[in-house]
């Protein structure tokens, strides 16, 4: 009777054999002391190997929460679909939240954080969940009944942001827009604002977000958006700032889950320009070069800090590092 080869005993002990092979081996083992000895020797060798390798373990760290990884994956996904225009980003952000209240005021001119002057302006819009995710499609624009000024706001922002920057061109100011301000019944507001977005003044946003609203020092702020949050929690904020070149960068800070949700929504609702742009589309970029968004994300405890904008990734990286250092030293 043939004895069991060494590798088969390994496979047997590693549970790497089929049921029938196991039966065969077991019946042989039952009547073969020599193979029993071999099996015991191999079992000991396996144990030694396992014990030796167990020493090759890193100091035990704490695995990050699964939600952290989900947030990173959301960032990765949003970057993956980065053929995005910033205007569409603004629109999809608004649309993605499915808000009942929508921020309508892009500011008439860039306002430095040190000299906040624009007003809080909230426009109620019950049908705002029907906001177009795609501002690129003229058909969508026409078919969506919305107040003209706001549509212009988004449209013009998109138009500006998608045009390739010309180094010699004068600085393009933020588009001049109508500010609309409507009184909202107080009770209504309290119910409705939960989980929704408001565009706020610098002071107002700062008061809600705590003493430091994450932003890049020294750049004019064009828009501040705040997501309402549970009482006592620091809310999610989006600060849009404009560079001298006219590019807009956004600093997003908030609870991991919310930011990740936002980015994921953004990735999903970003229209592919090649799909929605037609020859008659006035939003079509004038040149072949289209700037794309880059996104940098940094985890800070259970919160996520994100900077996104059409800038080289190393610039964003430098910004997010500096911002993180500032926030830490705070």
């Amino acid at each position, binding site marked *: 009777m043939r004895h069991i080869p*060494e*590798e*088969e005993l*390994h*496979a047997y002990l*590693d*549970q*790497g054999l089929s049921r029938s092979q196991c039966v065969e081996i077991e019946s042989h083992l039952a009547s073969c002391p020599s193979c029993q000895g071999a099996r015991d020797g*191999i079992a000991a*060798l*396996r144990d*030694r*190997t*396992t014990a*030796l*390798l167990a*020493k*090759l*373990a*890193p*100091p*035990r*760290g*704490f*695995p*990050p929460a*699964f939600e*952290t*990884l*989900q947030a*990173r*994956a959301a*960032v*990765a*996904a949003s*970057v*993956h679909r*980065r053929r995005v225009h910033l205007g569409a980003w603004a629109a999809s952000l608004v649309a993605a939240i499915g808000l009942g209240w929508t921020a309508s005021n892009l500011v008439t001119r860039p306002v430095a954080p040190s000299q906040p002057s624009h007003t809080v302006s909230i426009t109620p819009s019950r049908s705002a969940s029907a906001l177009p995710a795609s501002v690129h499609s003229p058909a969508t624009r026409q078919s969506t009944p919305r107040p003209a000024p706001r549509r212009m706001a988004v449209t013009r922002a998109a138009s500006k942001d998608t045009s390739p920057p010309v180094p010699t061109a004068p600085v393009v100011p933020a588009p001049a827009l109508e500010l609309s301000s409507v009184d909202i019944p107080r009770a209504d507001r309290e119910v409705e604002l939960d989980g929704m977005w408001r565009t706020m003044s610098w002071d107002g946003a700062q008061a809600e977000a705590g003493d430091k609203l994450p932003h890049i020092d020294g750049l004019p702020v064009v828009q501040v958006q705040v997501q309402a949050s549970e009482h006592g929690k620091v809310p999610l904020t989006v600060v849009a700032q404009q560079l001298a070149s006219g590019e807009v960068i956004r600093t997003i800070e908030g609870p991991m889950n919310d930011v990740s949700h936002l980015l994921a929504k953004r990735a999903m609702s970003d229209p592919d320009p090649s799909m929605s742009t037609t020859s008659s589309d006035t939003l079509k970029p004038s040149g072949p070069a289209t700037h794309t968004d*880059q*996104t*940098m*994300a*940094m*985890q*800070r*405890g259970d919160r996520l800090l994100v900077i996104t904008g059409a800038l080289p*990734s190393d610039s964003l*990286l430098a910004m*997010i*590092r500096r911002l*993180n250092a500032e926030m*830490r030293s705070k």
Partner: protein
Amino acid sequence: MDELEQLYQTTYTAVVRFLYRKVWDAERAEDLAQEVFVRALTHRPEKPRAWVFAVAANLARDEARAAVRRKRHLTLLKGDPVAQPTIQPGADTLVEHDERMAAVQDALSTLTPRDREILLLSDAGLSYPEIAAQTGLALGAVGTTLARARRRLVEAHDRQHAQGDHAAHS
């Protein structure tokens, strides 16, 4: 619970250990392990467990070639390191631990790359079919390879020990 979340809870440590035995840097191993799971979340592979280790092996290989280039558009940075405390064993335990570890590390380095890979995959809990699929080895050859790898590892380690003892006594 999400299938991937379950996998994460059960295998994250094994993936870190698997990577650590290739890059020999605990922090880097954790970074790479997290990257692996982030990718799993974006790709949603059909056989996530085998996939996770396959990607981990690839990342470690890239790392070894020092050719790892983060995606141009995205740099994920580790957040506040203070927020993630690690347990620090006492200094004495640490030194002893390091010495023992170095001995195994040396022994492991005497194996051929393939034997080492298969041994580490097996130790990480992969089944024979999974190992075969990942390494391209015939299913029947997994046992043979493991038999050889185990024997060589223990022999190399014991040989070292014998030398060490000899040096200590002379």
